[in-house]
């Protein structure tokens, strides 16, 4: 087994880059939306065969065991080559969760199946009417002998229609004093009777999110992760790394690149007004890259991210939104045509960035919530 961490950074980068360039399907580079399992399965299996599906898992469990520096190189190379996200909830959430809090039985049953692509996981956190107030969840799980009986509804569950399993937060003690107490963490098989998955079409014409209904669904008691009623603490601790990936400049860089292609075809770089707007956005992205790099360095040093990391998500998603608006403006009369439009060169999808920029400031904690966090925890403003 290779000890990737012992390798020089540049050598490792080259190795990863070469593999991506040689093996990633070129038609799937920089997809404008999340790919469905049918589209991405081939690449998933390629990564699985290479042993690269779980970069951060310890080698003991079949992962690459990368340290933070190497893992960031891995991500940078993915982003550089436009490698799409796989259905990665098993790798990024369930794996680390079980490795830290799971029983030996849970680890030995679930982890290999994730690595073989047998199990695809989705995340059952959000509920209707809960929004950013995640802890107000209502889906209940009542113990009935050696099973939990689950009733309720999850929503905004990403790609649940492709998932075989769902990890979820359920209310196991409705009498608990604080809403964060009395919540447990459960693993549930999506084939269990009583589960209904309903995709939610979005305004971009895709079905990335689903509603998942639970009607007397039964799950073994052994499927609980961690202690009964202590699920909130576990879930919260798992959100760490997500906070930096939500602030990645990737989407903005991609959108700016598409805008440049469109603008070149339409001759807009000869228009000083366009050039001024484009330059302002270039600078917004350049400064985002710079601040992002500072937070990446913190991760590389193995230190904990502070609440100030929230600024990345705010600036990244709002910059992305501004770029997508200039894209629509630049397309002029073609600014409302759906799908790729031929401007006399490489066809450009004008609206996809605009649509995808809509939910960006909402998911992963709305930008309003992120601003509240910075106001209180970074600037120390009073309640």
């Amino acid at each position: 087994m290779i000890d990737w961490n012992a390798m020089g950074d540049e050598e490792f980068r080259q190795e990863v880059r070469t593999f991506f360039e040689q093996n990633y399907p070129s038609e799937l580079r920089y997809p404008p939306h999340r790919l469905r399992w049918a589209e991405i399965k081939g690449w998933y299996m390629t990564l699985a065969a290479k042993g690269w599906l779980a970069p951060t898992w310890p080698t003991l469990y079949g992962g690459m065991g990368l340290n933070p520096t190497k893992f960031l190189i891995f991500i940078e190379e993915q982003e550089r080559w436009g490698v799409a996200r796989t259905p990665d909830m098993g790798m990024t959430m369930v794996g680390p969760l079980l490795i830290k809090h799971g029983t030996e039985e849970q680890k030995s049953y679930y982890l290999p199946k994730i690595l073989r692509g047998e199990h695809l996981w989705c995340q059952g956190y959000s509920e209707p009417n809960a929004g950013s107030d995640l802890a107000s969840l209502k889906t209940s799980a009542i113990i009935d002998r050696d099973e939990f009986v689950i009733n309720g509804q999850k929503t905004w569950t990403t790609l649940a229609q492709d998932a075989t399993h769902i990890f979820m937060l359920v209310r196991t003690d409705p009498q608990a004093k604080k809403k964060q107490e009395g919540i447990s963490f459960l693993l549930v098989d999506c084939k269990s009777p009583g589960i209904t998955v309903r995709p939610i079409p979005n305004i971009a014409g895709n079905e990335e999110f689903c509603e998942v209904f639970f009607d007397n669904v039964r799950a073994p008691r052994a499927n609980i992760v961690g202690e009964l009623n202590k699920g909130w603490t576990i879930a919260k601790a798992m959100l760490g790394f997500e906070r930096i990936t939500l602030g990645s400049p990737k989407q903005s860089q991609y959108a700016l690149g598409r805008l440049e292609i469109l603008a070149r075809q339409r001759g807009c770089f000869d228009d000083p007004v366009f050039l001024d707007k484009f330059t302002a956005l270039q600078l917004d992205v350049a400064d985002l890259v710079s601040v992002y790099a500072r937070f990446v360095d913190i991760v590389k040093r193995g230190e904990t991210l502070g609440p100030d990391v929230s600024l990345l998500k705010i600036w990244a998603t709002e910059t992305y939104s501004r770029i997508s608006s200039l894209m629509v403006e630049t397309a002029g009369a073609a600014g409302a045509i759906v799908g790729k439009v031929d401007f006399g060169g490489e066809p450009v999808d004008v609206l996809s960035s605009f649509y995808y920029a809509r939910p960006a400031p909402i998911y992963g904690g709305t930008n309003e919530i992120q601003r509240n966090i910075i106001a209180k925890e970074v600037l120390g403003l009073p309640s």
Partner: protein
Amino acid sequence: MNANAMAAAAADRADERRLLKESVAAFVERCGGATRARAMRGRSPGFDRAVWREFADLGWLAVTLPEQYGGLGLSLTEMAVIAEELGGALAPEPVIEAITLAAGVLRHAGGSVADELLPPIAAGEIIPTLAWQESDGNFDPAHVAATATADTTGGIRLNGSKAFVPHADAADGFIVTARDEQGLALYWIPADAPGVEIVLRPLATGAMVGCVSMKQVEVAPTQRIAAGRHAADALHLAIDEATVMASAALVGLIGKALNMTLDYIKVRTQFGKPIGSFQAIQHRAVDLYIQCELAQGALGDALAAHTEAPRSKAAQAATSRAKARCSDVALLICREAVQMHGAIGFTDEYDLGLYLNRALVLAAWLGNSAQHRRRYAAIGNASTQEASA
């Protein structure tokens, strides 16, 4: 007329407009509102011809038509009342496209083609559309590449292609701009004329926009609507009037999207309180409200300018001012509305997306805000030079 009589007349007109507004609102609501807009997406035609004929029966297609053609001879301000209500109700019928724009060109041009076509258009029997833009999207109506050349048999051959033609799948015929030896000319060609080919693309609303290509399309001299300066004037005026109507439709849409959002944030709770009670949300809502008021002000001034001096530089400038503001505000409000709604605002089943998509279409149509700000500046400079010359 003395001041009191003028005030009374103004009050009467205001009353009439209010009645018109209420009757349009009630009718389109009865027809299905947003539900119907949703159902029409991706269909061809993208609207309901039965509803269209009812519009005709109600006289809405003949509001600004002179009485000689069987019209009501009312002003653009009355038409704006209809456009605003139809816009707010997301009605898919192409009233602005077919009536203010295409029939507007005929009306301003006059002549035998207009005499023949306007009555059946007003009656809802013929639906025309205007094919004026080239595929580069240039929004100066004088920018015409399609050609009209005399053939050896006394007929005329049209060649070229016209892009961004609204409802090209549904129209019974096209009014096309082409360049001949006199400059710009306008021709009427039936949709099924030999040599016409249409490539359709879906817009964000689900309606179809077409690229109409003409290969040696033969037209008789009687199909020529107008030529030269006269044609250009008719075209410019109809486009300007349609631009004001698009602004009115945007104002209708803006009001609905804002109210929908205000209603939502009053009842949607987070952390135990309605999100509309959070001050940051409140102040953003106030800024949207202010923008709504500005849009209404700009629209009002454009309608007034078209009433006072319809072909003046002032009317052109007011038109661009209205379209720029209304387009920006509509996109701003719809973007912010999605953000304030949270995830549900991004779902297809919630009506807000229909407003966002309609805002995208109307904002891009007939020149977006950036294009109209530029035009406003150009008109301003031109009129300054005129004044100093």
